[in-house]
């Protein structure tokens, strides 16, 4: 729906919101319930901040940009990975809303996860700016070269949370890291060390660990399509191996060279 459709009168009702709570040294995790007044457009993040402001100032949240650009507000809403800032409660079905932190990363407190392990899986410091493919008919001034834009991936971790392989295997680098590697290979043949990236991807814990569940692509709020990129990466790896005359090793075998 367009922005115009959104500008309508509000209705006042409440929703039951159940929030996962956890403080270090304060016992096991538990769930708190709140009745939150909501309007037609209230988002999950707005509901959580209402709880923080009016009912429980100790509730800890991650958020920053409020428009799906920073990727910090990832949570699981009724079991599905969503960005809280752009998830209207109206989209979550009519009943109780349960909010939990995203999965497969350590929980620091309440809904806040520790992104250190997420970031560490990436193969190298990422360049986050690339050429813009939007408005290709535009005439770019010579002195600018090409219009740039930030990479789609907002490092939100929703893909890692949704991945069923990550649920059982911590050593898997995960969809975001692999998608990033594939983007670098796709984007910049000149400035990127292709061999190093492909070596990194060519491991049991990397490109070969994926089992094609495609949940990462379903969960991604930013159109990265990590699953398709992992498959494209495998195609590159297959070609490289063929060119180098090596067979594809079995999963779990020793160093294939």
């Amino acid at each position, binding site marked *: 729906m367009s922005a115009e459709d959104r500008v309508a009168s509000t209705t006042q009702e409440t929703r039951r919101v159940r929030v996962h709570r956890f403080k270090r040294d304060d016992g096991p995790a538990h769930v708190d319930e709140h009745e939150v007044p909501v309007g037609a457009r209230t988002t999950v993040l707005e509901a959580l901040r209402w709880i923080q402001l009016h009912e429980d100032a100790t509730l*800890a949240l991650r958020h*920053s940009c409020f428009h799906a*650009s920073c990727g910090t507000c990832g949570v699981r809403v009724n079991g599905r990975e969503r960005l809280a800032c752009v998830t209207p409660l109206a989209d979550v079905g009519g009943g109780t809303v349960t909010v939990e932190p995203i999965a497969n990363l350590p929980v620091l407190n309440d809904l806040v996860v520790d992104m250190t392990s997420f970031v560490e899986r990436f193969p190298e410091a990422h360049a*986050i700016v690339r050429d813009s493919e939007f408005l290709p008919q*535009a005439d770019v001034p010579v002195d600018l070269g090409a219009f740039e834009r*930030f990479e789609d991936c907002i490092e939100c971790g929703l893909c890692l949370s949704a991945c069923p392989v990550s649920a059982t295997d911590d050593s898997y680098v995960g969809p975001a890291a692999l998608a990033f590697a594939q983007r670098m290979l796709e984007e910049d043949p000149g400035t990127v060390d292709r061999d190093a990236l492909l070596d990194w991807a060519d491991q049991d814990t990397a490109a070969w660990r994926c089992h094609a569940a495609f949940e990462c692509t379903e969960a991604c709020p930013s159109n990265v399509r990590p699953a398709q990129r992992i498959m494209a990466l495998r195609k590159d790896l297959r070609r490289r191996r063929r060119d180098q005359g090596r067979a594809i090793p079995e999963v779990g075998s020793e160093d294939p060279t």
Partner: protein
Amino acid sequence: MRRSSPHVLIIGGGGTGGALAHDLALRGMQVTLVERGEFTSGTTGRHHGLLHSGARYAVNDKESAVECIEENTLLRHIAPGSFEENDGLFVAITDEDMAYLPAFLAGCEETGIRTQVLQPDEALRLEPMLNPELKVAVRVPDATMDAMRMPLRFFATAKANGAVLLNYVDVTDLERGGGVVTGARVRDVVTGRESTIGADLVVNATGPWSEQVAHMAGVDVPIRPSPGVMLAVRGRLCNMVVNRLHASGDGDIVVPQRALSVVGTSSWVVEDPDDLGVPQDHVQRMIDEGSMLVPAVREAPFRSAWSAARPLIGSKDDADSGRELSRTFKTIDHAVDDGLEGFVTITGGKGTTLRGMAEVCADVVGRKLGVDEPCRTRETVLLPHTAVFAA
């Protein structure tokens, strides 16, 4: 063990706090920064991501304009790869807008902001989605930043240089004795435990919350939280920043953010920076004004609408809407203003001027603590933002 360098406690983990932590760490001071939520979760992370050329202020607020263009140039050098360096356009739609053009060009000339005047056909070749009725466009060195990730580089570098950055630590009170602020009473949100952090100097870098924190020290600061609404729609409708060529008004900027377009902003004044609301008539205004610049805004699918509070400096008697208050920044040494030692407030400003604000404040801090190190932030290239998560 004797502490050999003075300890500065910075309250506030927005861009200003992060940049200050970076500057002070480079000057060899021991720095602790406390932020009650996630870094940049206050005002800093919420803005549309404009790296100001300063052209918006070239006519009415030349001090801000000069600050902006200087910092604009510097930031591209110390944070390479953190900007979409596509420039911006100031677009005249009405005759009234055209009347503003001479003063605009003169103001930019005076403040050192490069301009290039474009006729409608030239402008439309650059940005095909512009309102085809435009009368003239002026190209300026605007750019787009990721509003969280760029400031986060200051945090990352500060941390690597020894600053201790504590998010999820909430300041509940300031400790004072004999006219000196000696530290802060804090609650670690991660565990719920309370403790006291002692410091040789406490800096209040909390933006629109500045007054709340200042009151903990028993002093006042003339800061009014002045929120504005922003609207994000799906579709990258322009690659350059698109501004309306006029003095200033609601909805007069469209900033591309990845595959979205952000329209901003409006202005009103509140008492409580935590409870801003998102007035729907303001959102409607974003749609209406934004589509004057880029007509596709009107039908583009909705992504988000939110509010962010600017910290505007001005006394309570000043203008009601907040827009007339200056956008410059201010360092307040409370020893001078209020006879209270050990407490400094840095406030005002814009996302673009974070480094410059920090330099001025760090100079004051250095002077007060007898640390005679020069500022090194103009030439120090920042670490990538991901380094803030380094163990």
